[in-house]
């Protein structure tokens, strides 16, 4: 093993993530090579200092007793339920609102725009807890028809075609939609939900952004399985984000994706 390889493997070595033969090779090299051994000693010392200075806080006195106490009494409303309720409330509000608005379909875009500009802030907060002034929220507006009033509305309003997929065959209903600017690119982000509360989020982004390393750091897409579907004949990729690998697999199977 050369110095370059040993250094390259040093983090993995120290994290205990190498296979037994690889581990032996690094050990062997460190025994033979003074500069690499120096690097190793430095890194080891640095980790020890960090652990000592940053990673050694203790739980406050009495926390254990407090927790045990919480088990036997305290009706704590789980945050998740609270959040779900706020999302559900926002969704219900919009469904009611849209039902009212869409009774006169011809005026929809204008009516929608005026409702949106007064109400979208509250929805955003219920939706993902973040405030963005460049964000539009809608519910139940996914459509497969490019000429639909909703699509036209988005094209006019934000100069961007919405990402619309019918996921009804998987039991999902459209829940909401946001358009926001990400690295200078408008991203239209749609969330679908099934009766069990699973969500699929999907957005249309340029293929360049989609191919950036790492997962998409989007409001509803953090740390979940992602499936990317390039849109034929365009520079766009649709990015689907799932609650679980099971949901992702179900989607892949239903869409004949690998």
């Amino acid at each position, binding site marked *: 093993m050369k110095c370059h390889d040993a250094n390259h493997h040093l*983090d993995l070595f120290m994290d205990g*993530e190498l296979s037994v033969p690889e581990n032996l090779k690094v050990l062997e090299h460190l025994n033979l090579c003074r500069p690499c051994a120096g690097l190793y000693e430095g890194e080891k*010392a*640095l980790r020890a200092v960090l652990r000592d200075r940053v990673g050694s806080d203790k739980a406050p006195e009495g926390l254990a007793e407090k*927790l045990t106490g919480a088990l036997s009494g305290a009706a704590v409303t789980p945050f998740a339920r609270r959040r779900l309720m706020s999302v559900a409330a926002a969704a219900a509000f919009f469904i009611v609102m849209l039902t009212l608005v869409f009774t006169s379909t011809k005026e929809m875009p204008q009516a929608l725009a005026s409702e949106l500009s007064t109400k979208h802030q509250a929805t955003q907060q219920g939706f993902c*807890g973040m405030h963005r002034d460049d964000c539009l929220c809608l519910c139940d507006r996914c459509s497969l028809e490019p000429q639909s009033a909703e699509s036209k509305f988005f094209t006019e309003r934000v100069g961007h075609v919405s990402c619309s997929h019918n996921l009804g065959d998987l039991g999902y209903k459209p829940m909401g939609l946001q358009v926001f600017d*990400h690295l200078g690119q408008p991203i239209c982000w749609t969330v679908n939900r099934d009766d069990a509360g699973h969500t699929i989020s999907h957005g249309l982004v340029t293929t360049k952004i989609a191919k950036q390393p790492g997962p998409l750091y989007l409001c509803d897409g953090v740390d979940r399985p992602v499936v990317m579907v390039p849109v034929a004949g365009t520079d766009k990729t649709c990015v689907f984000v799932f609650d679980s690998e099971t949901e992702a697999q179900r989607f892949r199977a239903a869409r004949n994706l690998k």
Partner: protein
Amino acid sequence: METQEEFSERVKPHLDSLYRTALRMTGEAAAAEDLVQETFLKAYRGFSQFEPGSNFKAWMFTILTHAYINDYRKRSRSPLVTDFAEIEPEGDVETPHFSAEDVEKLADRLGDQAKRALDRLPPEHRLVFILSTFEDMSYKEISAALAVPIGTVMSRLFRARAVLRRELADFARQEGFFQEKVDR
């Protein structure tokens, strides 16, 4: 189902770990206690899903990270959006290394520099760094806890370490004792 007392006893040895992770992620003691309590209650209610013989600490951290990502983080005002631009490109970036002597000098003058450098990392990177470096979780355990691929765990971890090394090297240079040793 375990009794409440048995469950509490089982959690006790991991309480410091859970609390300090929660503290570094939320940034304040009260929020950290809330997060630990939420984790504790969720773990108790969901204990039937724990596979006997598997790693209990890793299981607790899975619940903690879920609670943090899904609930705490989204309720807080700060956006969970990290621009791609914030993510540093691979390669061609300085990766300084400390000698053991440098680290000794660093330790003498460090103050809360390291804490602040860690707190400045994007939460996703900070979490992976803490779980690996302080809590000795394997990449596989972290991958399971965060529901992200191992490759993602590794890239976050290595980026976090590179950023911390750089920030500490900057500090050491200001203090005037860092011997340049740039390689890899």
